[in-house]
């Protein structure tokens, strides 16, 4: 069902955890949707220096969070905001059609965190 990359990121998710002194934090989803992801960012000079996530969700959701955080690390906020679901899914080596929607959460949380950071 899932690609090897998905399974790798599900089993050994990168950047999982919390951040005590995050510069930006955002959470999307809710129990009612079945999926939730929380993103923590450390930002310096417009660059995402570090990122952590916590996800309650299916395998695709966890792997997508892991992959999305890997993709944004070290990127500028503008570059990071441009990363698309397509990019995450491709980097994961594909996802079953009915699971693609589970991959949007991490990016949504990321964009929300950047927006909030920018508006402060």
């Amino acid at each position, binding site marked *: 069902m899932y690609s090897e990359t998905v399974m790798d990121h*599900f089993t050994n998710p990168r950047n*999982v955890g*919390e951040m005590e002194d995050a510069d930006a934090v955002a959470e999307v989803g809710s*129990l009612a949707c079945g999926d939730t992801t929380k993103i923590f960012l450390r930002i310096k000079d417009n660059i995402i220096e570090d990122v952590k996530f916590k996800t*309650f*969700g299916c*395998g695709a*959701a966890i792997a997508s969070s892991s992959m999305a955080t890997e993709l944004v690390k070290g990127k500028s906020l503008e570059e990071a905001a441009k990363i698309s679901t397509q990019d995450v899914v491709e980097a994961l080596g594909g996802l079953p059609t009915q699971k693609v929607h*589970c991959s949007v959460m991490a990016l949504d949380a990321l964009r929300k965190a950047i927006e909030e950071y920018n508006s402060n």
Partner: protein
Amino acid sequence: MRKVYLDHSATTPVRREVAEKMWTYLTDKWGNPSSIHGVGREAKKGIEKAREKIAALLGAEAREIVFTGGGTEADNHAIIGTAAALGGRKGRHIITSSIEHHAVLDTCEYLEKDGFEVTYLPVTREGVVRIEDLKSALRKDTILVSIMHANNEVGTIQPVEDIGRICKERGILFHIDAVQSFGKIPVDVQDLNVDLLSISAHKIYGPKGIGCLYIRRGVKIDNFAHGGAQERGRRPGTENVAGIVGFAKAAELAVAEMETEAARQEKLRDKLIKGLQERLEDVELNGHPGHLRLCNNVNMSFKYVEGESLLLSLDMSGVAASSGSACSSGSLDPSHVLTAMGLPLEYALGSVRMTLGRDNTEEDVDYVLDVLPDIVKRLRNMSPFYKTQAMV
């Protein structure tokens, strides 16, 4: 890595004795039972013996057994056949429960679109239908009550004898979906006062794609499909001969071993339940905690954890389990059964079903007790809802 299959309510491995019986009917006695020549008569003999065998196991007569393409077809046949036969004359009201298998629920919903009224009985927190609820749902125009014998997700056994008695008194047809109970607890159509009863072979170490519907003598329901005169004109289409003989063999063996197997699995079940409760916090056992639970069913919820990721992790550790019924896995909606039982969402989303079978051993249970708690802890540590003790 150890392989532990704990999904016997989804399907079971075909027993060697069954596969061998089928082989004979695939390669040697492959005739068409409707043919009058020797090759056909051999096949006919095979299915008629199978029919007698299954009938005897159910306390029924051979002529009351109609072979179908599985449990789903049997359920559809029972419900749609009754609706078609009685809907025009007697009434258009049907009673079922809110925790039935989709084969019953979706069929009832289909009939609702066609102008039938359906009452979906609620269940207790343990997943049991209340007799009072049934009684107050009965109407003058009720034509059918369809209640499952044992639930496929949480293993709860329903008070079908009592329901059967009530239906009989009022002259209302009673259908039981016995797909999960047959082979695990006694299923006798006389004791149950039942008019229509569905079974499926692949839940009892038989092949997939074959099942049967018991239709009590004298009960007139419409056919589900139309065509040839097979099955005394009640189910057209060339018979799945190999499947039928395999089904009968599986049924025979399942009933013969039922008592000892049930006792053995019950012990494993209780060990698994207790072991997990001891090892983890925020754990809930779903379904009935005592005698109204199938011998092989463990259904537990782990708060802060999502079901699919739990299953996936178990699979990677060699443990095959499921979340809700297999056919609805992959959907993110919480199980309709757990929801009907009133389980809070945070528990419903984190449920896992582990169903034991004749191949499972105590070592299997020990292995699960070994790997599952760590998986739950790992996933909880990833969950934004879980208050982590330490940062990861």
